């Protein structure tokens, strides 16, 4: 049974230094609030996993939370580079970041294999790509029936997966809809899980075959309305494209980044505080 609990307590008890952590989301439902809380609580030595690391991963990496990143596409969607990610890889700042790099197909299958309690994922993939040359975790095996060569990569099995969803009921059953990405697989692949939600309701009113994560498969459910901001939650909010664009100049220099993080994240108590300070600084910028 999931505990319905404040985000701060969920992160304090479920995310530990050195953990492998996946904060998943595919443009939609990205758990920014939870990422901020991990930064506020000063976690170190994390192995971060995500198919599409974006701004919240740029922030986690730039703040020195991560020692390693397992990923398949790292950018600021619709804008350009992740400057903190690039600085970690190109400039080893704030320290060296080890990377394990896959394709989306590889990562998606690795989450499926993790959710399925298999040690590895099997796919047709990586053929002709240089990725297997730089990633020893991409191997090839033979089909025992046809002799065909197929790619094999280790399952993703995070210590903790964090996602954002639209609704939970009072028992902690969670409903999400729209672009689902790999969130269900990421939760089921993990030992522990935190789901931030837009609201807690009496009845999920889920269609019969909807994507519902039962409470007993989750560790914690945390009400954080707007917790995906600047990402969106279908039916609740729109993506704030201005923030994605505004992030680019902030993240370009180490100083502006540090100052921004100090003011907006470290010096705020929670995501509501972040939203308030952000509204102020956006007003200043105009």
């Amino acid at each position: 049974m999931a505990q319905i609990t404040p985000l701060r307590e969920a992160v304090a008890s479920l995310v530990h230094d050195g953990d492998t952590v996946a904060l998943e989301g595919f443009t939609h439902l990205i758990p920014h609030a939870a990422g901020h809380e991990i930064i506020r609580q000063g976690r170190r030595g994390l192995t971060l996993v995500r198919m599409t690391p974006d701004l919240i991963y740029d922030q986690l990496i730039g703040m020195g939370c991560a020692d390693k990143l397992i990923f398949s596409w790292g950018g600021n969607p619709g804008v350009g580079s992740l400057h903190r990610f690039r600085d970690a890889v190109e400039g080893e700042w704030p320290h060296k970041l080890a990377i394990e790099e896959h394709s989306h197909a590889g990562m998606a299958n690795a989450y499926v294999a993790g959710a399925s309690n298999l040690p590895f994922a099997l796919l047709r993939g990586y053929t002709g790509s240089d990725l297997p040359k730089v990633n020893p975790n991409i191997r090839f095996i033979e089909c025992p029936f046809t002799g065909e060569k197929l790619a094999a990569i280790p399952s993703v099995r995070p210590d903790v997966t964090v996602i954002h969803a639209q609704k939970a009921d009072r028992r902690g059953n969670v409903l999400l809809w729209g672009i689902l990405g790999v969130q269900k697989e990421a939760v089921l692949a993990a030992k522990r899980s935190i789901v931030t939600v837009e609201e807690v309701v009496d009845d999920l009113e889920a269609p019969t075959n909807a994507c519902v994560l039962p409470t007993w498969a989750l560790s914690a459910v945390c009400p954080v309305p707007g917790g995906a901001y600047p990402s969106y939650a279908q039916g609740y909010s729109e993506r704030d494209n201005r923030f994605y664009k505004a992030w680019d100049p902030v993240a370009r220099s180490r100083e502006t980044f540090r100052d921004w993080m100090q003011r907006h994240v470290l010096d705020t108590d929670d995501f509501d505080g972040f939203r308030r300070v952000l509204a102020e600084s956006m007003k200043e910028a105009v």
Partner: protein
Amino acid sequence: MTTTPDTATETPDFTATEIMTVAASRLLKDGTVCFVGIGLPSTAANLARLTHAPDVVLIYESGPIGAKPTVLPLSIGDGDLALTADTVVSTPEIFRYWLQGGRIDVGFLGAAQVDRFANINTTVIGPYDAPKVRLPGAGGAPEIAAQAKEVFIVLKQSRKAFVDKLSFVTSAGFLDGGDAREKAGITGGGPTAVITDLGILTPDPVTRELTLTSIHPGVTVEQVKEATGWDLKVSPNLTTTAIPDAAALAALRDLQARTAAAHGQSAGGGEG
């Protein structure tokens, strides 16, 4: 940048990006099932859907199947894609049942760099372990490039983008050319066109080397060669790209105006 139409008839002016987009969109046949990359491919694919190919099926890696967005998505997972789709499945399902399942006619990709055999780099410039430029990475491209029945690549042409030797092959085109792709066990047909702001390059049927087969009106062969990092082959049957018809241009500009109004800018390119 505006090119001048090479005819004296009354045609509307258009930019190099516009003729690239329209030319790319024209290649997409009605009813085609297209796996769409964000940015230029998404613009071209949606333009096709709004003009000559109303029944093109657009699939995005985030999960929408049969998306019919009213504005261009800024990212691969915009809500409009989900709301207008025939259905939205999980990302693993997209890659497993739909792409690897062999159901994609056309993979429509962008690229940071290509080489003469239409191999794609979106990973690093310089050594992998100490890169000069760290690019976003593979995303869906390696398997789209390998498994779609054919692949269109759209990117602006320059010596920085069209390089003699890639630092990193992220996604396979024809590898070292000839039958290297087939020998590597890749089943999809590979790139059939690289559409740029200067012309259209297609692989030689035997050597598989990219050859300039169509040049946009107002562009010279010298200009194209100048923008290519290898000694570009030019087809003896070089044709001039048809100028964008007024309807297509109007549709493109409408789409971009709607998009700008919705997003507060013209659409960039990105996953995420």
